[in-house]
């Protein structure tokens, strides 16, 4: 195949930059800028078809890696897959050096400003800042004033949002000083884009980002308040419902830190601790991603649930290092922006190198007048809060809304800042078979360590074809983009986060440092996955018979299977009662429909939803492969195509089969790729308890009444034991052999005894109170159940009374169906409920 493509097939051939905007890729003379030459040459060389393939494959890769982001910060449900534009943004190193110097200065300034505001407040005394700007700013939380700095700084990780104006210069739009988000997405962008252009990225002298993350990790280690070779760093996340959650789990895994929520932590004796199954272990450094006003219910809002009681006092005493420092959110108030040039002159005697977009704080009468006169030139933001960051754009308002806005602006002018909208630069994006100019937003990242500022080479780039899309950081019409800073010479090749070879590695085994919350999630992950499999098997066994050649009425096993489905909570209990069933929809409709409904609380669909939820909660603990499987499992139960308004039985059977395969793959990963830590033990406990319980329920519904061979066959099929049975007894189906295989056989991984043997093994090494005497309650329960099953004789269990009922078997199953939930509760009580409810007494005086 020839490498020369015709002109028409070159993807850049038809690209036209947008007039009035700086184009990142093409200069005014239509030639590609130097930094873009390797990319343009490469992509043109590929031709349209290869580029299309690359984009498709890359998008699949991005989807599979499970990256999501929340389109709207406040509405946690709206997670969408993160999408990427596969043409990176290339920035020449000369440009970058200039920007980098400006960002270093800006970061130093943000630090100095914050340190002054939380300390001597010279900026206010000298009226460099209007005092009102800070004193009526709701982000100025007084308890944080005067707290010690950590490692000589209050701001350890800072981000700055930038736009390139038509004159080619970058302008600052705003800063993020609390807990800047985007580092996780940025790494993903780089990983995926590198895979798309493996040779190009190596040939083109693109600065690596990994060294920045090594510095970040070094920084956290040096922040530790105690001299320790191996400080414990934890990332404090607001939790699963937060827009940050995906990124927090990613960073925890990427950097090797423990991911914690407020309720995993406790301040005891003035020291911050992680609550683990093995007891309390001290936390040295906390990378805080929760809001400033949420940090401590004792000193801030009494209803703050994301934080830890006593955290502020622990920070005040210097017993824990918190990054970014408490109170750092103040420095990102948009209302500060217009005053930074003066602050720089006052504090440093320097002019600001990096210009800010024209911004006015309306709390000043002159500024308000100017803004009201030229209203249409500006967009408006909340002066103090960044959260949500909804832009107010009078130009897009109805006449009425506009008047309302002007009235609120006049009434509380100090609540608003007005900012000029920059005509942002554009860069080529390949979309729908065309290369088009999209607007560019760049977020840079800086860290401060040992008095020096390090700027990440590149940044998080968002591109969007519309102004509306690009100005809203959580907008839906946008793509991520990798950012390549192009050096003139070969660059440092660090590309992984391997530890430095100079430091001898201390060998460790995963031990007791499992937060109780994580153990709880793993326990339920095990239970839900087993429950889903059990339901799916019984349901499939039943539905296969519905579409068989025999009439359902002639199948003796049908009523038993229906009773089993009712017993495990998949269908209404009324179906198990012959007289009541008539009033209900026919099984042909009800069974396929039951896959998708959420009516039955313990049914398949809610179980799978809970399974996905638990997997999400322990994302940082399970492998990417495992998570991907769970995602696929969840998709099998998405609403189906309906034929004549009915859910189709055959489709349902196929879906159940795929669902079962997925669940088997997931449990396989649990066995083969999960180290035997405490976490694994809880996953196992959940699985084994659930499987034993489900099996006992199914047997009780099907085999207590004496039976015909079809029933035995159906039960063996539903419990995945038919193969084993046939290999032993061929075609002779007998109740005692069936009961042996499913209850008392210690070699069948599906038998109840097998589950109980594993439960007692797994429980044995779990930590108990050091002064506890005797066998703990949950172990006694487990041993008792195991003992009864071991002692049971299948021949006696299979024997029916004259009534036709197997009374002894029923009795044993009754003990199991009651004892297993009790065992689950006992384990929960000891290990998983780790706190009493706490209450604030502040309001009661």
């Amino acid at each position, binding site marked *: 195949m020839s490498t020369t493509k015709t002109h028409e097939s070159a993807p850049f051939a038809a690209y036209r930059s947008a007039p009035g905007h700086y184009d990142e890729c093409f200069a005014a003379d239509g030639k590609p800028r130097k930094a873009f030459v390797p990319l343009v040459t490469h992509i043109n060389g590929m031709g349209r078809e290869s580029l299309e393939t690359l984009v498709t494959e890359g998008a699949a890769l991005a989807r599979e890696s499970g990256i999501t982001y929340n389109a709207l910060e406040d509405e946690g449900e709206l997670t969408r897959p993160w999408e990427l534009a596969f043409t990176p943004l290339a920035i020449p190193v000369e440009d970058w050096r200039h920007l980098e110097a400006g960002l270093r200065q800006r970061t130093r300034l943000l630090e100095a400003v914050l340190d002054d505001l939380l300390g001597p407040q010279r900026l206010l005394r000298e009226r460099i800042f209007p*005092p009102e700007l800070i004193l009526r700013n709701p982000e100025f939380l007084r308890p944080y004033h005067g707290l010690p700095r950590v490692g000589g700084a209050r701001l350890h990780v800072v981000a700055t949002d930038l736009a390139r104006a038509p004159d080619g210069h970058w302008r600052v739009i705003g800063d993020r000083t609390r807990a800047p988000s985007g580092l996780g997405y940025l790494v993903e962008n780089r990983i995926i884009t590198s895979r798309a252009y493996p040779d190009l990225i190596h040939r083109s002298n693109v600065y690596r980002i990994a060294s920045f993350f090594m510095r970040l990790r070094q920084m956290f280690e040096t922040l530790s308040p105690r001299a320790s070779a191996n400080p414990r760093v934890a990332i404090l996340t607001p939790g699963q419902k937060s827009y940050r959650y995906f990124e927090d789990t990613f960073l925890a895994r990427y950097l090797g830190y423990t991911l914690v929520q407020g309720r995993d932590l406790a301040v005891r004796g*003035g020291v911050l601790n992680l609550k683990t199954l093995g007891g309390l272990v001290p936390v040295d450094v906390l990378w805080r991603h929760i809001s400033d006003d949420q940090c401590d219910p004792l000193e801030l809002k009494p209803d703050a649930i994301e934080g830890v009681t006593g955290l502020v006092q622990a920070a005040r005493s210097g017993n824990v290092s918190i990054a970014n420092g408490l109170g750092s959110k103040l420095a990102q108030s948009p209302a500060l922006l217009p005053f930074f040039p003066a602050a720089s002159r006052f504090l440093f005697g320097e002019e600001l190198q990096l210009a800010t977009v024209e911004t006015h704080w309306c709390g000043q009468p002159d500024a308000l007048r100017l803004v009201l006169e030229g209203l249409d030139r500006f967009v408006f933001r909340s002066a103090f809060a960044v959260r949500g960051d909804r832009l107010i754009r009078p130009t897009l308002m109805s006449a009425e809304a506009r008047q309302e806005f002007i009235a609120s602006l006049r009434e509380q002018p100090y609540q608003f800042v007005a900012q000029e909208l920059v005509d942002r630069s554009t860069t080529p994006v390949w979309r729908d078979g065309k290369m088009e100019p999209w607007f560019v937003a760049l977020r840079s990242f800086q860290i401060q360590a040992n008095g020096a500022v390090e700027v990440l080479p590149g940044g998080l780039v968002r591109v969007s074809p519309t102004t509306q899309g690009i100005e809203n950081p959580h907008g839906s019409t946008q793509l991520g983009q990798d950012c390549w800073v192009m050096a003139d010479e070969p660059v440092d090749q660090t590309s992984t986060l391997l530890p430095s070879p100079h430091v001898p590695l201390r060998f460790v085994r995963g031990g007791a440092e499992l937060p109780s919350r994580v153990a709880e999630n793993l326990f339920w992950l095990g239970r839900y996955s087993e429950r889903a499999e059990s339901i799916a098997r019984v349901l499939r066994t039943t539905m296969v018979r519905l579409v068989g050649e025999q009439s359902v009425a002639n199948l003796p096993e049908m009523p038993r299977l229906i009773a089993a489905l009712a017993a495990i909570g998949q269908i209404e209990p009324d179906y198990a009662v012959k007289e009541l069933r008539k009033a209900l929809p026919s099984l042909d409709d009800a069974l396929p429909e039951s896959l998708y409904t959420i009516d039955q609380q313990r049914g398949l669909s809610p179980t799978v939803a809970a399974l996905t939820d638990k997997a999400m909660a322990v994302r940082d603990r399970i492998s990417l492969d495992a998570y991907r499987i769970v995602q696929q499992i969840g998709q099998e139960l998405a609403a189906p195509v309906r034929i004549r308004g009915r859910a189709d039985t055959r489709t349902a059977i196929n879906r159940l089969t795929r669902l079962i395969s997925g669940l088997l793959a997931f449990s396989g990963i649990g066995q083969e790729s999960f180290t035997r830590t405490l976490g694994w033990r809880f996953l196992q406990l959940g699985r084994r308890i659930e499987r034993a319980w489900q099996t006992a329920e199914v047997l009780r519904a099907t085999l207590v009444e004496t039976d015909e061979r079809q029933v035995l066959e159906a039960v063996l099929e539903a419990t995945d034991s038919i193969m084993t049975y046939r290999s032993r007894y061929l075609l002779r189906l007998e109740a005692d052999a069936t009961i042996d295989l499913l209850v008392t056989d210690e070699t069948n991984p599906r038998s109840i005894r097998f589950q109980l043997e594993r439960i007692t093994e797994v429980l044995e090494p779990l930590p108990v109170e050091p002064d506890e005497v005797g066998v703990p309650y949950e172990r006694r329960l487990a041993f008792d159940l195991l003992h009864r099953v071991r002692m049971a004789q299948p021949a006696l269990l299979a024997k029916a009374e004259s009534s036709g009922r197997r009374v002894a078997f029923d009795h044993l199953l009754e003990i199991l169906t009651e004892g297993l939930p009790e065992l689950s509760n006992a384990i929960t009580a000891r290990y998983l409920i780790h706190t009493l409810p706490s209450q604030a*007494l502040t309001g009661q*005086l």
Partner: protein
Amino acid sequence: MPDSSRYRITHRTHYRYSEPVAICQNQVMMIPRELPRVRCQRTEVKISPTPGQSSAHVDYFGNPVQSFAIDMAHRELSVVVTSEVAVIATQFPPADQTAPWELVRDAVTSGSDPNWFAVEEFRYGSPLVTSGGAFADYASASFPDGVPILKAGFDLTRRIHKEFRYDVNATKVETTAEEALRLRAGVCQDFAHIQIACFRSLGLPARYVSGYLRTLPPPGKPRLVGADQSHAWVSLYAGQQLGWVDFDPTNACLVSTDHVPISVGRDYYDVAPMRGVVLGGGTPALTVSVDVVPVVESP
């Protein structure tokens, strides 16, 4: 009226819980701070059970704060703060001879008052006191153009006392000034919040004072133990000469040697005497008693 009074103050806070408390973490703001007219001679904080850990710091507004944690199971918590303070009587010029209120406001706004930065903090809204048009409207009757600041301040104090109903059931500790204004009722905390909001709505600095009020027994009767009260009132910045002047809108009286301040802040939120978070505890039952006993100087 004596020039100064000395008191021994005993502030007892007692929690009894229906369920055991595993851990409690608390902050106490009951240690009297030094103010121009207050000298604290001695303070002792007794906590039972004995805290496993405790520490002290001074907050943003200059108030002493004691933090402690108890991490052994307990069903009762008792905090007894005993202090000895001397309160100096304040002498004011006749109210109608004080400066017009606008002068005070303008000197602070322009920064020509050398104390402007120290009082600036108290001109803006705070967690429980959001100033708004309704307060400016209410205050305006007491603040015509050019009226002397103390005269206007006393007038406002009397009006609030007269026009608002004292009602312990009308409001809660987290009630805002705006709600209390709407209800036209409340307790000392709410009266103080309303008056603060009025002053601030005019651009005047005003702060919240928490403290104690000494009650005098009826003539011929002995003083009852625990009969005194925690109290709250208002402090208005009345210019460089007069400094902070206190008003008590609950009693419509001058604040003098019967009022003993402990802490000052923007509103109740900044100076709650005790904050706590407990693990467990079920339903807590709280009893508080205060004794303000005059100390007779030995001749």
